[in-house]
């Protein structure tokens, strides 16, 4: 029986005026690959930030590595790699690709240690995983959005994490890179036994790779193998539209009529 490393127990998270996640109970076991889906504003990013201990539970509890999330320490966080949802980046910020990825090492290094050659090698390897090894000294601000995304994935990998939280990793990158990013994630899961929490709107892309899908809309509507979650009666509660699910695709009924 695999060990539970993230446990939501009737946990509620929110901001001063909104509840973003309500009464969530969910166990994620070591080495699991979990996909998180749900419409905009359904609390997916909040789920990530909660796991990182960046939010206090308003009710219930959340344990990560047997530690309450509000007491998560730096050395715990260093074991969680995080790719934030794409936000605005100051294109003029003077930082190179390699400097960005090296930041992934800082948490694990601790306060008084300088990065060594070994840390540099880890960063270089992470960059080669995402195919950016020939852009080490490029200014981050001069890369395209998708290339920046790859650099940030490399930074998360450079942490050599046990758990990887990926908030829409394939949004805004080209189709070839999307597939290579997904291949990379599958490899990290299968060969390096990382626990992966992947948020996406692209259900078709991940449905064959994940062990479990979690369907959110403030509350947890479903959590289980993809074939159990991707059923019209389940999805309708959350997306409010009828969805047709074929062998490979998942199509909104409206669009379906439109195109056929």
């Amino acid at each position, binding site marked *: 029986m695999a060990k539970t490393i993230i446990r939501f127990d009737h946990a509620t998270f929110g901001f001063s005026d909104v509840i973003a996640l309500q009464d969530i109970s969910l166990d994620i076991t070591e080495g699991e690959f979990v996909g998180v889906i749900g419409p905009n504003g359904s609390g997916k990013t909040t789920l990530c*930030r909660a796991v*990182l201990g960046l939010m206090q539970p308003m009710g219930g509890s959340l344990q990560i590595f047997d530690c309450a999330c509000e007491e998560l320490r730096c050395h715990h966080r260093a074991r969680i790699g995080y790719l934030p949802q794409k936000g605005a980046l100051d294109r003029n910020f003077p930082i190179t690709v390699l400097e960005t990825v090296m930041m992934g090492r800082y948490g694990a290094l601790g306060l008084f240690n300088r990065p060594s050659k070994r840390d540099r090698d880890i960063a270089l390897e992470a960059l080669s995983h995402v195919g950016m090894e020939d852009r080490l000294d*490029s200014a981050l601000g001069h890369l395209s959005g998708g290339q920046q995304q790859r650099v940030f994935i490399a930074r998360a990998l450079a942490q050599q994490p046990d758990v990887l939280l990926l908030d829409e990793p394939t949004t805004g990158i080209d189709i070839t890179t999307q597939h290579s990013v997904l291949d990379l994630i599958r490899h990290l899961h299968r060969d390096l036994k990382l626990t992966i929490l992947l948020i996406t709107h692209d259900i078709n892309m991940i449905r064959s790779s994940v062990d479990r899908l979690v369907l959110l809309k403030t509350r947890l509507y479903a959590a289980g193998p993809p074939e159990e979650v991707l059923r019209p009666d389940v999805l309708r509660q959350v997306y409010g539209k009828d969805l047709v699910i074929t062998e490979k695709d998942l199509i909104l009924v409206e669009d379906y009529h439109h195109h056929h």
Partner: protein
Amino acid sequence: MFEMLAYDFMQRSLLAAATVGAVCSVIGVFVVLRGLAFIGAGTAHAAFAGVALAYLVGLPPLPLAIVFGLATVWVTGVMEEQGRMKLDVSIGILYTATMALAILFIGLMKGYNAEVYGYLFGSVLSVTPDELRVILVLSMVVLGVLLTFSKELYFIAFDQEMAEASGVPARRIFYLLLTLVALTVVVSLKTVGAILVFAMILIPASTAYQLTHSLSHMTAYAVVIGVACAVGGVLLSYGWDLPSGPAIVLLATTIFFLSVLLSPKRRRRVQTA
């Protein structure tokens, strides 16, 4: 030209200027990158209010300047974290309030006190051996701490939430940075003055910002520019009998505008446009 270096006071002022130039430009890199520019200005005025109070009640100026400076940066830090109000508004209020306090304290003094105005406008040529010692010690402390925590400071300047998420004690580092800003301002008060210290923090760093795409290069450039302007300013000030603070700052400003004209970042933008 070089005979002036034989004077003790000249050696002292050059050493004080170079030290202040170095410490201001290094802290300036983090201030500029973390978007704390306004905090520097607010702190300078608060520290000056501390100095004015000290002269009013007859206490040593430095400790009170430190207390006032620290109180201001910490209050500002809390305001930023809570994010209730736009930071420029809250700092604007603090900044004018501390300036009002300073004017009040000066108004309460009997007669004209030239020393107080020395802190407002800067008078590096009159730095005493004791003051120089304090400047050197405090600067070494600030630079040492900056060097020790440089990787964390760079990370929070780039993305504080990401730093926190990946296991850097980002909040504590942020308050450390604010504390160092306050100490730097106090160290520089006598040399460049409360009005101009802000420029010494901002200009070398933003000049370096124009010139490079790398964090480590930016810091190196900023130090070279900061020290060169401070020393050059003192020499100009002595040679042409100018007030030292404005000489340093105007020299730095000139170099800043040159860097904007010559910036590789700017050129690239023009090419791609």
